[in-house]
């Protein structure tokens, strides 16, 4: 009797899994319209960044001093900046910088946080205490101040910007993951894994990490948006990406200070791009959280 019940359960599950993906996609759009919108914008930005060299109408770094401060029009859809560079091309290439920094910093930061958080919860005791106090010190600084300090030490440049953004992410992710891992730690299968004679690293990486994937993925998606914003902030402050590399924060800085009245489009379009990207990643992150939270999933 028990067996037949399980058979039926498994069959039903197989059926659910076999639904074609367009149906699943439509289902997702209907149930989570905001999340779907976020996902579409994210995909849109990724495509733009990936095919920047195909899409961009002009060379983003080529100065054209006969076309300075041109208003948006047929020739330059978003206008030109103070060096006559096409703003749309710079925005398109800027997406590359933003997404590259955003994804790399978010991935490295949250992954390091994941391992540290799980290890902290698994070992407990003094190791946990010391590690968490170090994390406390890092978290005492606001994200932007921390990043500023790192750039001040390492110097600017895209690599150092990524490091500067990564470091403050680590403790945030580690803290969240640790709290999940603490509860996983108490579930008997971890004891069972120890009773099987597995070593610490195998238990942490194979048995605990996959069970705290939900908070990890949520932190990861949230961090991408934050990293884009941080990169823009650092570039705006002159500590991030340097000219002439196209970066949204840098374009904002050049435009906002001097030409806010005479050529506002120089600042408006990069600002819109930053806003849209961060907004999209946040919506996407919320949808991911809802999808991974078992309490919300059933509704």
């Amino acid at each position, binding site marked *: 009797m*028990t*067996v037949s*019940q*399980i058979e039926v*359960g*498994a069959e039903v*599950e197989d059926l659910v899994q076999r639904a074609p993906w367009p149906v699943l996609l439509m289902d997702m759009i209907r149930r989570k319209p905001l999340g779907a919108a976020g996902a579409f914008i994210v995909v849109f930005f990724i495509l733009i960044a990936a095919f920047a060299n195909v899409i961009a109408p002009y060379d983003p770094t080529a100065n054209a001093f006969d076309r300075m401060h041109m208003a948006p029009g047929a020739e330059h859809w978003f206008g030109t900046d103070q060096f006559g560079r096409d703003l749309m091309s710079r925005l398109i290439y800027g997406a590359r910088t933003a997404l590259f920094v955003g994804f790399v910093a978010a991935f490295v930061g949250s992954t390091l946080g994941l391992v540290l958080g799980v290890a902290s919860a698994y070992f407990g*005791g003094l190791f946990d205490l010391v590690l968490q106090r170090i994390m406390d010190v890092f978290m005492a600084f606001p994200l932007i101040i921390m990043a500023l300090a790192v750039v001040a030490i390492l110097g600017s440049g895209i690599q150092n910007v990524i490091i500067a953004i990564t470091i403050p992410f680590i403790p945030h992710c580690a803290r969240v993951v640790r709290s999940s891992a603490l509860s996983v730690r108490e*579930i*008997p*299968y971890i*004891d*069972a*894994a*120890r*009773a*099987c*004679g*597995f*070593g610490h690293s*195998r238990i942490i990486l*194979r*048995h605990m990490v*996959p*069970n705290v*994937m939900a908070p990890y993925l949520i932190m990861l998606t949230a961090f991408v948006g934050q990293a884009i914003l941080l990169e823009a902030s650092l570039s705006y402050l002159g500590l991030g990406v340097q000219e002439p590399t196209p970066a949204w924060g840098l374009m904002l800085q050049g435009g906002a200070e001097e030409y806010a009245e005479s050529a506002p489009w120089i600042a408006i379009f990069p600002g819109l791009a930053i806003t849209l990207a961060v907004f999209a990643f946040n919506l996407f992150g919320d949808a991911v959280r809802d999808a991974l939270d078992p309490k919300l999933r059933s509704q």
Partner: protein
Amino acid sequence: MATTCQSWIVYRQVSSIDTGAREILPFRFGYACNALPLPNGVSVTALLEIEDLRTQFFTSAGTVQAVDGISYTVEPGETVAIVGESGCGKSVGALSILQLIPDPPGRIVGGAIRFQGRDLLQASDQEMRDIRGRDIAMVFQEPMTSLNPVLTIGRQLTETLEHHLGMSRPDADARALELLGMVGISDPKRRLRQYPHHLSGGMRQRVMIAMALCCEPKLIIADEPTTALDVTIQAQILELMKDLTKRLGVALIVITHNLGVVARYADRVNVMYAGKIIERGDAGEIYRNPRHPYTLGLLRSVPRMDLPRKDKLDPIEGQPPDLTRLDGGCPFRPRCRFAVDRCATEMPRLEAVDGEHFSACWQADALTATERVAS
């Protein structure tokens, strides 16, 4: 040692008939016999010999003497039951063997655990990891939570095989299939690819047993293996464990509070109370002729179908003692109907009352007469 090898060969034949998986037979023949090199001059009688084991938990409320000087032995192929109520230290005692006590707050503070003549308490972490799962395996109480939800059944089985025996993936897969067949899981091929949530509690416990058996250990510790299962499944699982351990010559320590389990499946019984073993003997002998008031109380508090139906069961009054505040006397004294003055001052030692039957009670001799009168 020789017996282990023989039974192992027998098992290989039996299991290959079961699943028809004859081609996977010749894998690392005979490793089970030389897993632990013995120091010279040590004669091995018992498979496992626990001597005066003390495990304590250091908490803010005080030191909990969870296991307070227990000694027992397990012979190769034998089934030994550890019986007692919740919190009497039976699980802690078993976890101490594999050194799985969470530290802090727990610590093994004294005694010796000799497995094949070698003291496990002196073994390094790496040596312990090699022993766990390969020489001594464990079956946990909760089949619902003892399997990792994100790994397939097959992966959880093959992981141990690859880890301890260095098997290749295809070999391990074939062996996993064979093991699932052995523990009576239908359609094992499909089960290998499924996740724990696809399986019922009884099936999961079968998988746990398969995992415990996969490296052909010499000892399996089953910590209340049937408590979380419903009654019909309990009997099946116990029969399966009994059958497999007998067939493969694996010794089994069953930790339980279910006296029915003990009577039917154990060769010898250790009754624990407040961290101490208070009675030991042959399972049938303890049932027929309990020589400790606690064991007597336990037997009387269980409904029995072979006795005239009474209106009410006869429970043991009172609560088990606070393990942080034990005095020198017998811990069962406040609940004991047979207590005398001496019980308050002196803890009786576990002494032979009748051949292989041991009891730790000043009144052990008086108990026989009283009990006969009562029943």
